């Protein structure tokens, strides 16, 4: 992480995209965006554009991967070749394989997998445009796609990163802050269980800075969580209105 040529935070505490230190980027979410998938959702967070689709519970292929006591959650996080500045090879990279694993493990604690033994639930996250913080936005949108698929869950999972930029702890890093900043702390949280289900960190932070960053990320999570819930409820308001109109 080299020293940036231009400051990422100006003397008034304003960031390159005009945000304050503890401000989220604009978040837009919608659910039920794909007709073939059992559940789907789409998120825009800053310039991130990410699509998630869920298929299942369905029969496991190949069969030997089926678990006798629960459904197996399979997760693929993938970036489109055109989602970043330099074309990314479409083959899964080591980074994508690691992120697929940590995202899966961020979602598993909330899903009642034991209700669907021997099946698989397949979750696909496609990053169409990346702008820093794609794993977090990926978790947020994936948990909505799972809910949209009607899979029983203890709660939604929501994720947000915090980090250190120009010596200050900031919320929801964008691409340049992620690349040139001093630290990045992605966190996934599930409010009902008061549980952190994804936690990673790279960079350099004192214990005190880490504690501040963790609290800030959790605060960001809680703000996105209310958006998530509104989006999901809004879909069923529409469904209810349609049903009522039909009944008349």
């Amino acid at each position, binding site marked *: 992480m080299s020293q940036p040529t231009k400051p990422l935070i100006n003397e008034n505490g304003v960031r390159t995209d005009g945000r304050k230190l503890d401000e989220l980027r604009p978040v837009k979410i919608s659910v039920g965006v794909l007709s073939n998938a059992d559940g789907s959702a789409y998120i825009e967070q800053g310039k991130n554009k990410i699509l998630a689709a869920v298929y299942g519970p369905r029969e496991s292929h190949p069969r030997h991967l089926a678990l006798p006591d629960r459904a197996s959650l399979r997760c693929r996080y993938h970036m489109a070749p055109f989602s970043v500045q330099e074309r990314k090879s479409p083959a899964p990279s080591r980074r994508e394989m690691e992120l697929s694993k940590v995202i899966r*493990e961020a979602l598993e604690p909330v899903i009642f997998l034991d209700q669907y033994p021997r099946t698989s639930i397949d979750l696909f996250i496609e990053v169409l445009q990346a702008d820093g913080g794609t794993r977090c936005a990926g978790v947020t949108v994936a948990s909505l796609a799972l809910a949209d698929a009607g899979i029983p869950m203890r709660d939604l999972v929501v994720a947000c990163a915090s980090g250190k930029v120009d010596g200050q702890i900031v919320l929801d890093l964008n691409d340049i802050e992620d690349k040139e900043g001093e630290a990045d702390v992605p966190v996934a949280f599930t409010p009902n269980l*008061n549980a952190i289900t994804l*936690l990673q960190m790279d960079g350099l932070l004192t214990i005190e800075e880490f504690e501040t960053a963790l609290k800030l990320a959790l605060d960001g999570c809680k703000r996105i969580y209310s958006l998530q819930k509104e989006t999901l409820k809004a879909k069923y308001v529409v469904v209810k209105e349609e049903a009522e109109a039909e009944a008349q």
Partner: protein
Amino acid sequence: MASTIISRIKQRQIAQLIAAGKRLDGRGLTDYREIKIESGIVERAEGSALVYIGKTEVLAGVKIETGEPFLDRPNEGALTVNSEFVPVASPEFEAGPPGEESIELARIVDRGIRESKAIELEKLCIVPGKKVFVVFIDVYVLNHDGNLIDTAGLAALASILNTKMSNYEVVEDEVKVLPGFTQLPVVNYPIPVTFAKINGQLVADPGLDEEEVMDSRLTVTFEKNGKVCAMQKSGRSFFTEEQVLEVVKIGQQKAEEIRRTVV
């Protein structure tokens, strides 16, 4: 976690012992198993180290070659960490391309070394933008008895501390090898510390049987000044905020103790 089958009795026993503040092998909850380090055991490699934590055994080897720098780091040498779960190490390991566990492990070790700036990569530039030294750290798991991450992190660190490069001069953008050797410039010492959560309790340095019954694990890597430089939660369960902060606090002391055995 893919797991060998252990009896439910043992599973219950581990959980009950931990609830009483004890462990199957007599350790305290935050105790590590014995750590042993043997450096320089592979002469063909530029650096190497075999590290034991208890019966877990990991060999790391360093090879240095010339190559191209990363586009965004034209004046720095490159670092690559790879890990192999070779089938000699466990009945669970199979030959073939690396699985996600192995990729995750390599990336955690990589982050620790990279983010702490353990190797002075600026000193490994040969021709800016064109040619640099590439440091390959290959982590070979030889025997799996739990806590591969910490063992691999220590092995990687011990191996770079043990690495010698041939002296060279640059003649018309080519490297000409000169007699003698120089130590690879290593200036920081990242130490990963892993805690498992079993029945809501935190235990350091989980053994294999503890990993079989753990809910989740959290690895925190500390650099020489006690700052956190990498972190990774994995496993199918979660941590509370308080548990995370507890791991960070105890982990910092543990890392300091362990660092004294390596450096």
